[in-house]
């Protein structure tokens, strides 16, 4: 599988996640979002950037529960709930946001 970003093919795994973390650019996130008919807002980017920083520090994609708690702590309590995250990422904040952020699928996410 591959994702075409500005005419360049980026390799994906069998579930549609980036094969190589290093292949990620903001354009990759935009292209993934466009496939889901989503235009990325600043609120989306807050989550995507948070996920990338989390992965950089811990080398894992956080579980949804962990993500929710951390977002609440960092971006404000009103954002630290699954309703808010699902409003941004209707296919599941873990799966969809991690995909946009170029991370592997969260461990324990089916």
């Amino acid at each position, binding site marked *: 599988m591959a994702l075409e970003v500005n005419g360049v093919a980026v390799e994906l795994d069998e579930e549609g996640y980036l094969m190589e973390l290093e292949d990620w650019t903001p354009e990759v996130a935009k292209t993934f979002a466009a496939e889901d008919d989503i235009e990325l807002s600043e609120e989306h980017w807050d989550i995507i950037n948070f996920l990338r920083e989390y992965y950089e520090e811990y*080398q*894992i994609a*956080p*579980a949804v*529960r*962990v993500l929710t*708690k951390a977002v609440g702590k960092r971006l404000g309590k009103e954002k630290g709930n699954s309703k808010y995250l699902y409003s941004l990422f209707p296919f599941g904040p873990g799966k969809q946001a991690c995909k946009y952020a170029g991370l592997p699928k969260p*461990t*324990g996410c089916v």
Partner: protein
Amino acid sequence: MAIKKFMFVNRKAPYGSVYALESLEVVLISAAFDQDVSLAFLDDGVYQITKNQDTTGIGQKNFSAAYKALGDYEINKLYVEKESLEERGLTIADLMPLMWEDEDDDYQEKSSIYLVNRAEMADIMATQEVVISF
């Protein structure tokens, strides 16, 4: 679902075999099931949480940072066996500081590591309902 006491026992060094990484993945998954999870590090398992791991020379992914995320997963009982460290010329100072934030105590950072001797480790194991050994 009733909450059970789960213990994951880690007895192998990382990178030379796949056990350490597999254990870590199962531990992270187990966190989704809201069980009472603890980890034991004994024998060569103590090498899994040494500080300053650098895998650039062996071309494998360094997964030691993920142990620092265990606190976020509310896994904050990591029992390390004193004799296992001593037999390997190590002390607790050679291990990564692994912390968790106590929400009920103004997000105070507290250590997840408990240094226990072999007899204490045996007692802790004896109180578990499910023990999974790697």
